[in-house]
């Protein structure tokens, strides 16, 4: 870890790598994040509507429940698990392939700190871009709920909008963003570790990639519990 976070040989090169990684980790994930988020919001709204048929429960509960579910859990955690699959496997296979084709050895021989050069920009990019992705996901999730509610006629636009404003606590968004920073760190470091310590053949790279996804997901779930306990209880 100390090698990963040691001082860069040449900061401009690292800065360029960070921008490249922001594009690779963040911008290229926008499509899947948007798709997942809209459908998650829509399904939560439908499920909530189908489960509240009592006359004492107001219709705006659909908006309220969709907002709470999306902000507190679905956007930060489920999207992080999806990104563990997409970004995590990509990082592990990229670094793993560099290991088995001796490209990492070539960096070491040149006198480059290979761990820092390959991993540090990914970690910094992940920590930076994940909160943006999760913010977009929250917005699109709530939008998905509104869209399906209005289109299917389960409640009016005004009722839904009242619901998403009802008893709103700004700290819930802060809590979700704190989680996203931790999850960004976990996905990039765990995946980079598995890629960096790949050994042998292409088969081993595939195994490292799978391990990266599995271990990242497990750590995310445990961390999700710990952070919730610390921040919300």
């Amino acid at each position: 870890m100390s090698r990963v976070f040691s001082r860069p040989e040449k900061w401009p090169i690292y800065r360029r790598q960070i921008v490249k990684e922001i594009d690779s980790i963040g911008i290229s994930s926008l499509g899947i994040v948007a798709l997942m988020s809209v459908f998650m919001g829509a399904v939560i709204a439908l499920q909530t509507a189908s489960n509240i048929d009592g006359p004492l429960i107001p219709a705006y509960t659909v908006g309220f429940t969709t907002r709470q579910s999306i902000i507190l859990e679905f956007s930060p955690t489920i999207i992080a698990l999806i990104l563990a699959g997409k970004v995590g496997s990509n990082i592990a296979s990229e670094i793993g392939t560099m290991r088995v084709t001796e490209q990492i050895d070539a960096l070491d021989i040149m006198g480059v700190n290979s761990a820092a050069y390959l991993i540090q920009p990914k970690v910094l990019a992940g920590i930076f871009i994940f909160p943006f992705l999760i913010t977009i996901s929250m917005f699109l999730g709530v939008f998905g709920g509104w869209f399906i509610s209005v289109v299917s006629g389960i409640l009016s636009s005004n009722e839904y909008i009242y619901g998403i404003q009802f008893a709103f606590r700004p700290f819930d968004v802060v809590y979700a963003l704190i989680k996203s920073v931790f999850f960004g760190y976990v996905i990039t470091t765990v995946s980079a570790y598995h890629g960096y310590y790949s050994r042998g053949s292409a088969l081993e790279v595939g195994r490292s990639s799978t391990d990266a996804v599995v271990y990242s997901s497990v750590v995310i779930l445990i961390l999700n519990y710990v952070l919730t306990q610390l921040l919300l209880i």
Partner: protein
Amino acid sequence: MIEVKNLHKSFGDTEVLKGIDFRFGQGMVNMIIGQSGSGKSVLAKWIVGLHKPTKGEVLFDGLSFVPLPIAEKREVRKNIGMLFQAGALFDSMTVEENVKFPLRMFTKSSEKEMTKRVNECLERVNLKGTNRLYPAETSGGMQKRIAIARAISMQPKYLFCDEPNSGLDPQTSIVIDNMIRELTYDMNITTIVITHDMNSVIEIGDHILFIHKGEKWWSGDKQEILRTPNKELNEFVYASKFMQTLKDKLAG
């Protein structure tokens, strides 16, 4: 000059190198030969610090390398160029970016100066005009030459070549061999070539170390190797029909 003293390397209970002492001379092509699994690649990786040592010492022009802290090891490595068996070019970079990489990382040269140096290196390996190609768009022989261009871009004092001819046709092998020899003499560098290709040994080997079962079994020059009475080395050298024919001619 690189000197190795009492080199030992074990992987678990298996001792791969068993106390090797050798001096690799400057301005000459030093060759490490031996059968597959004899420990020659391990020896080269040991010297450059890619393997952690079990025991022993490596001296780069008198400077003891093994006990150096990692930051100082990196400084020594800036003087090392290495040609890997499969080239180890960075796939995501063009030929120019590959050769430029060490310059960008370790020099304060302007973009124009770096491009000039890249073109010099590419011209040196007869690959002028390939700057914008990606490694995947080049042949195996070209990849080896690009790797040589990258290895010499920083004007190294030491050049390591791990099986430079593996996977190449005989004509391209000769081109690569000649290139290694010319660079060694012109730049007066210490070159270490790991190979089991006897054609290369006869073609460019100035000083040869034969490793057998992890031990220094024999050392000498290419004239001596053809007339050696050493049984194991004889079996290795004259394993092919081509070398047998050469032996018969020498005897005749």
